[in-house]
C-alpha cells in the first residue's frame, strides 16, 4: 500500500484554545479514513491545517513523501490535496461546467481540451450532466454537494478531504453519495468527516475519533463505534455498569 498522507504531531491553537492537539495518522491510497467527534472536536480545524487554510503551529504534513507543511493552500492543491467543504462553496455566477473547469484548469493543471474533457467526464461521473449549463448558484442541495465532489475530483487529487458531504441530505441521497465515495476509493486516499455514522461505517476502512482536538481512539469502524469512550463522549450513551 502506498502511503499518501502522513501527519506527524500536528498541533494548532488559537490563543489558549487548542483545536488540534498532537495528532499523528496515515492514509494510504485506496483507503478511506473516517473522522468522527462531537461538535468542536477539531475535525474541520484538522482539515484547515491539512489543506493549508491555516498553518499548523507544530508538526509535519507529508504528502507522497514530500513535506508540504509550509506550502500555501493553492500550492498544496497543485500537489494533490483536494477538499469538499461542509457548506458547499460553489462559484455562484459561473455555470456547473465552468465551476468544474476551474478545478481541472488550476488544481488539475490541465489546459485547453484536456481541461474541458476532464471537467465533462467528472460532471457525468457525479451525475450532474443535466445541470451542466446551469448557474451553480441556483442548484438544489444534493446537486451542490455533487458539484462540491465534482470540483474535488476534477482537481485530480492524491488525497481527498470530504467534510460532512452527507450532512442535510435525505436517506436516499446519502446512499447515492456513499456509492459515489465507494466508487472513488481505489484512486485516492480519502479522509471523510461525517456525523452520519452509518454512512461512514459503510465506507471507511478505519475510523478516528477526536475529542478536544486529540485522538481518542483509532481502529476499525466496529471497534471504534463500539468502544466505551466513543459511546460515552460522542454518542452520549453512558454505560451504567452499576444499574
Amino acid at each position, binding site marked *: 500500500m502506498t502511503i499518501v498522507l502522513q501527519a506527524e504531531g500536528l498541533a494548532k491553537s488559537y490563543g489558549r484554545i487548542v483545536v488540534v492537539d498532537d495528532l499523528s495518522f496515515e492514509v494510504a491510497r485506496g483507503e478511506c479514513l473516517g473522522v468522527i467527534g462531537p461538535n468542536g472536536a477539531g475535525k474541520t480545524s484538522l482539515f484547515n491545517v491539512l489543506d493549508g487554510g491555516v498553518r499548523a503551529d507544530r508538526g509535519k504534513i507529508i504528502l507522497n513523501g514530500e513535506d508540504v507543511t509550509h506550502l500555501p493552500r*493553492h500550492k498544496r*492543491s497543485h500537489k494533490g490535496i483536494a477538499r469538499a467543504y461542509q457548506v458547499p462553496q460553489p*462559484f*455562484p455566477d*459561473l455555470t456547473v461546467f465552468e465551476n468544474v473547469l476551474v478545478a481541472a*484548469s488550476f488544481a488539475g493543471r490541465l489546459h485547453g481540451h484536456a481541461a474541458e474533457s476532464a471537467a*465533462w467526464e467528472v460532471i457525468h461521473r457525479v451525475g450532474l450532466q443535466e445541470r451542466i449549463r446551469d448557474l451553480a448558484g441556483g442548484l438544489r442541495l444534493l446537486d451542490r454537494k455533487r458539484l462540491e465532489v465534482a470540483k474535488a475530483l476534477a*482537481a485530480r487529487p492524491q488525497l481527498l478531504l470530504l467534510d460532512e458531504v452527507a450532512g442535510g441530505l435525505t436517506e436516499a441521497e446519502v446512499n447515492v453519495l456513499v456509492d459515489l465515495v465507494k466508487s472513488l476509493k481505489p484512486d485516492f486516499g480519502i479522509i471523510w468527516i461525517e456525523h452520519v455514522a452509518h454512512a461512514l461505517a459503510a465506507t471507511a476502512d478505519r475510523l478516528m475519533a477526536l475529542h478536544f482536538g486529540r485522538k481518542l481512539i483509532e481502529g476499525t469502524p466496529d471497534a471504534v463505534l463500539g468502544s466505551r469512550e466513543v459511546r460515552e463522549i460522542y454518542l452520549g450513551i453512558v454505560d451504567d455498569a452499576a444499574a
Partner: protein
Amino acid sequence: MAAVTTMLSRSPGRHHLLLMPAVLLVLALCAVAAPFVVGEGLLRLSSEILLIFAMAQMWNLLSGYAGLLSIGHQVFVGAGAYGMFALSIHAGVNPYVAIAFAPFVSGLLAALVAPILFRLRDAYFTIGMWVFSEIVTILVGKSNWLGGQNGLTLSALRDMDPDWISPISFWWAAFAAIGSLVLLAGLMRSRLGLALLAVRDNDVAASSLGIDVWRSRFIAFVISAAGTGLCGAIYFLGPAHILPAAGFDPNWVVIMLFICVVGGLGTIEGPIVGTIVYFGLRQAFATSGNWYLILMGSVAVVVMLVARKGLWGTLHARYGISLIPIRREPPSDKTFGI
C-alpha cells in the same frame, strides 16, 4: 513572467467571435476617418466619451471581475497624466509619445502599493484605496518638481501644429476605448479570466482549487491602473494643463462607478450602456446647473432598486442575450461519442 504569459494564453472556451474582428475593423476605420469628417467640438466630445468609457471598463475589470471595489481610481488618472507631463517637461519627450509611457507610471504605482493595500479586505480595501489616493494628491501638491498647487503646463504642445492636437487626442482615445474592449474580452476568455471570475465569486474556494488569489488580483489591479493612467494622460493632452485637484478629482471614480452600476457591473456590455446613459443625461441637462447631478443620483438609485444588476446585467440575466459572449461552453456530447 512566463507564468503570466501562460495565464494570459487562450482559455479552453470555444466561442466563435467571427463577428468581432469585422466589427472592430469597422470601428477602427471609423475612428481613423472621424477627424476628417467631424467638426472640432464634436470630435472633442467624442474623445471624452471614448476615454470615459475606457476608464469605466478598467474600473469594471477591477471591481466587476476581480471583485476589488476601488473608490480611489482617480489616483491612476492623475498618475498617468502627471507621468506624461513630467516626461515631456523634464525629459523632453514628445507629448504624443509620452502618452505611451503613462500606463507604465500608473501601473508601477499600483504594483508598488498592492502589497500594502492587498492586506486589507473588502470594505477596508475600498477605503484604503481612497486614503491612498488622498495621500498621493497631497504629496503631488507639495512637490515642486510636479508644479505643486500650480500644476504643470505642457508647453511643448505650443510648438506643435494646433490643428493636429484634437485629431491625435481622438485617435489615442479611440485606441484606448477599442483596446479596453478587446483587452477585457480577451482577458475574460483566458485562463487568468477564469481565475478572476472564480476569485470574485469565492476566494476561499478559488485558492483551495489551486488559484493563486493574490497574484490573480495583482495582475488585474495593475492592468486596471495602467489602462486608467493611459486614459488620464490622453484626457489632459487637450487642456495641456493639469492641477492636483483636476487630475486626482474624486469625480473621476464617481463617473466610472455610475457608468458601471447603471450599465451592469461585471459585464463587458454594461459600461457601453452606462456611458450612453451618462452622456445622454449630461448633454440633455447640461444647462440646468446642479439639477443634473441630482438627476444622476436619482437614476443610479432607481436602477439599483429596480435592476440591481444594472440595465444590461438585468437584460442579460432575464433573456440571456450577450453581444460579447464569454461563457465557456461544455464540449458537445458528440465529441465523446455519446
